[in-house]
């Protein structure tokens, strides 16, 4: 009777007020954890053939992740362009602590040097943008873990005898928090720049 503050009734009321508030703060921003990669350690390579443990090496930064294959003439360039627009928007606002990551789902074709060229011909700013490739089994696992599907549909036989594959693939850009958890998915080719910039700010805070 003395410790009124801890009475069951008070607790109930507290719960009623605090819990919804808590939920609002955590879920109201609509950035729930979609896929948790925080424990994963995929061994990938960047465009300079330097090993990158993904997403381990990105921890502490918010990451904007795009999935592409460089032989793609239409959708993937839009995804890449949208990432560039996000990068530019952040620069304008002096927002730091964000890394851009492009991962190929066609690593057999997209070697580090091919990815480097891809960035160079588009004159992309690679100061906070890495392009990742690796063993096919590893990139396949990355794609599976985030639900990105890429299936060779069309193929063309080149004069060299080599086959060139065109993929039907998920059109996706992901946003990853500082701990390596996927917090948002967007259509890569039709990204709402303002929205993702706001989501980035939410995750940076």
């Amino acid at each position, binding site marked *: 009777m003395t410790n009124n503050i801890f009475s069951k009734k008070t607790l109930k009321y507290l719960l009623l007020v605090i819990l*919804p508030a808590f939920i609002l703060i955590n*879920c109201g921003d609509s950035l*729930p954890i979609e896929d948790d990669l925080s424990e994963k350690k995929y061994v990938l390579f960047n465009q300079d053939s330097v090993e990158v443990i993904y997403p381990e090496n990105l921890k502490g930064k918010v990451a904007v992740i795009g999935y592409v294959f460089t032989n793609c003439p239409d959708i993937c360039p*839009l995804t890449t362009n949208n990432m560039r627009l996000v990068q530019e928007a952040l620069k304008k606002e002096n927002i730091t602590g964000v890394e851009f990551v492009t991962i190929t789902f066609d690593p057999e074709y997209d070697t580090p040097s091919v990815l480097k060229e891809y960035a160079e011909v588009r004159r992309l700013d690679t100061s906070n943008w890495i392009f990742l490739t690796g063993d096919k089994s590893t990139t396949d696992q990355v794609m599976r873990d985030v639900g990105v599907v890429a299936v060779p549909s069309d193929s063309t036989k080149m004069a060299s005898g080599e086959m060139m594959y065109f*993929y039907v693939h998920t059109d996706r850009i992901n946003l990853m928090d500082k701990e390596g958890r996927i917090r948002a998915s967007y259509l890569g080719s039709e990204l709402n720049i303002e929205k993702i910039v706001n989501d980035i700010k939410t995750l940076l805070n």
Partner: protein
Amino acid sequence: MKKLMIIILSLFIFFGCQEKKEESTEKKESAKSELQKAMKADESVLQIEDAWVRPAAKNRNTGVFFRVVNSTNSNDTLVAARSNYAEKTEVHETFKQGDDMMGMREVEFIVIEAGTVLEFKPMSYHVMLINLNEELLAEQEIELKLAFKQAGELKIKAKVEDRMPKMQAKEEKSKMEM
């Protein structure tokens, strides 16, 4: 009281955590685009306008985009595209599969109906250059040929640019306002 609390709480959790799914607003525009308005009335031959091509490295692929303005009285059909810049030059279309899958495929021909404008643009039709003989960098210009059933072979020049669909839309809008 307890029951009420549980109900309210679960409702809160349910609605509070509902994920706002990104909705695709994309709808492939029909071949007869609104650009009809922009058509020049008195031209009696097939016109190719505003051609551009994405930058790409040597041995890679890229897409060429443009507008075909058919202000003639008869339908015409694009049957082939040719260029000296790549091992293969094909006419392609991008298609959507399911909610968020995209792919592309070769198309044998495309009809441009009389009095319409057909736009080759991102997420729609493109001329695909496969295995480029040289790298294409912004500001450069390439030549290619489009073969039509009626108009025959038209030579066009495409500027190397890394355009976004939105930018394009803006330009068109301002053009129409003028």
